[in-house]
């Protein structure tokens, strides 16, 4: 089970929870599980999200391995200039 930190404005989709726990061992499974357990997250996930795994930011990296004790933070999809 992985703890996932949810940013503030998405918490209306997680019953106000700042952190949710889902069964996942990679980013794809994590996203799929979030959509199943918290359908209100789906529009944002479809628009795009990044995630920080133990402090490193990843985009579009479905098969990045996530350990049970990893710090996972959901973030908006990153762009730059």
């Amino acid at each position, binding site marked *: 089970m992985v703890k996932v930190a949810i940013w503030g404005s998405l918490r209306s989709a997680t019953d106000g929870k700042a952190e949710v726990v889902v069964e996942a061992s990679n980013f794809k499974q994590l996203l799929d599980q979030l959509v199943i357990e918290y359908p209100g997250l789906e*529009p*944002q996930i479809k628009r795009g999200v990044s995630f920080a795994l133990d402090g*490193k*930011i990843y985009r579009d*990296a479905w098969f990045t391995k996530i350990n049970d004790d990893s710090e996972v933070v959901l973030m*908006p999809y*990153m*762009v*730059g*200039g």
Partner: protein
Amino acid sequence: MALDENGKRIFKVVGTRPARPDGIDKVTGRAMYGADATAPGMLFGQFLRSPHAHAKIKSIDTSAAEALSGVKAVITSKDFGTPEDESVRDVQDNCMAGDKVLYDGHAVAAVAATSAAIAKQALKLIKVDYEVLPHVTDVDAAMQVDAPIVQAGRAMDDLPAGMSENVTYHFEFGHGDLDAGFAKADKIVERSFKTAATHQGYIEPHACLAAMNSDGKGELWCCTQGQFYVRELCADIMEMDASQLRVTASEIGGGFGGKTTVFIEPVALALSRKSGRPVKVVMSREEVFRASGPTVSSSTDVKIGMTKDGRITAAHATLRYQGGAFPCGTVQFGAQSAFAAYDLDAVQTIGWSAMTNRPKEAAYRAPGAPMAIYAVESVVDELCQELDLDPLEVRLKNAAGEGTKSSYGPTFDAIGLKATLEAAVAHPHYAAPLGPNQGRGLSCGFWFNFGGNTSVSMNLNFDGTVGITEGNPDIGGSRASISQMAAEELGIAYEKVRTIVADTNSIGHNDVTDGSRVTFAVGLATIKAARDAIQKMCARVAKIWDIDEDAVYWEDGYAKPSGPNAGTFEPMSLEEIAAISAETGGPIAGHHEVNADGAGVSFGVHLVDIEVDPETGATTVLRYTVFQDAGKAIHPDYVEGQMQGGAVQGIGWALNEEYIYGEDGRLQNPGLLDYRIPVASDLPNIDTVILEIPNPGHPYGVRGVGETPIVPPLAALSNAVSRATGLRLSELPMSPPRVLKALNAKG
């Protein structure tokens, strides 16, 4: 891909300053920019643009223009389909208005003719019947429930009910108990700030040459930061397969984020398809201002509590950004980065984004961060003044470090903020004396950086030289730094390597040149491609020596036997291996494709001395020093150039640059005479101090450097002006009339 050998590698080529490969072409005028492309039978495309900020298009009559001799095609939105993807639809609607014009300068029609003069004449013959609608250009006004609605039905699903339909995005970040944090403070300062929209100020206007063939294949030459993204957008809009549209990026005369999307390219392709001839479009400077993509403008409230000894106890910010006439999520990056420099127990940021009747925002170095950090760093500075504390010491006391839970969520890995602040404390600039009407300001800055999709090919030529093909336009010295990393890895001279930027059909996909990603991600792929080539070279040598591949290793440009058991052989150089590659199995190449992750965040500190003329309100920059953690600086000249360039753009943003709209919603200053960017005579030398705290996520320790330098100047300048005048200004730019007005009000 982790840092090699715990960062202890001794570099031979990386970290040196070889001559830039594009230098001769650029100073002799031979470099081919977007407007330099030509083709036989080429037509000239021009746009008709809206004179209204907001209006319904009741009808467009193009018949007279079409009848003009020399006119080969006229198009309007009716010549385009309806892309399935909403974001692509927005790009198309921004390139050519649909039922409504949404801002002054929005395109309504375009003409292709045998000369630019005929095209211009034809534009005057197009009759557009408008029904003018109420408009709004200010973000705070746009968020009012009774504001004119720019586009209906565009709000995201997670917005609270009862807001203006112009409000599209809402973000919140943070952690901790704010009430408890503010209760611990000895001093709380709460202020509101506004920043104007600014333009990236690239000198080369948008330009392209489009050629659609009757068989459905297309060619597009354009100045862009991302030829693959241009292909994706244009193929979607033109309803083509991506493989049938080849996009070639020209040399680029500045981008800074503003060339990460399209404004003219789909229209040029549509004109070419309709006319059957190649069509060239070059934006005028006025069009660049009115109809490309400036930054957001902002309105921000900040509240920070601090103890008497300078510890921040709680911090809160509400940010309101407008990004023009389409939904724009840039406020999310402002809300995430606002307090990133600080180690805080209680912090919250709230971001709102609203549509206005202005051009669609495009990225500009560290999009969204400079205006948020300007507001935060201004309040931190005011607290230091109120509590009589040293501003650098306070920042050091509160600085984020390894293990800090950042204000946007993740826990930081190794970062260089404290080292950067310590370098500023120790620098002679910080202790230099100041004269009358002079002030010293400073600010921290931050940007995330990221990697992304990247493809690199490396080919060994028979003469022992190396060609590298990559797919990111060189906006900041990437050809040099990529060649350096390849030379380092292969163990050959820099001069033996040449790197080129390929078109979309010559290499695999590459994401846009943005996010300070190229030296990090393309460098990483180059190192991996070199290691791939080395493995193949070692395999060839193993065959020649008739030993196992594992018994051959690579060192300093030579394949060598790995030890006495492998046998005694004379090492073979890359040149020797390449020379006989035809006989040993054919050409040798290395390549690597990756979605690169592990880019390290970057921090900087800027220190500036200014003098304010009390008679005119004009601010002169006297001295400026940039301190930044670059990770490993591959080519220090280019790293310093990025740091200096960001500082200069930030100085312009802080002191002079702004989009000025009249009561009629029209842009009042679409030209470089009235929109004043800093020139060399306005500036002192920008000194730089590069710190090299290796990024653990890159084999050489590279971080991105291109965006962070534009973040601190806004607050650094504002804090300096405050200390010089005793006034806390809360709006940018601090132009002479605005400063003089404040001085006069103070008396």
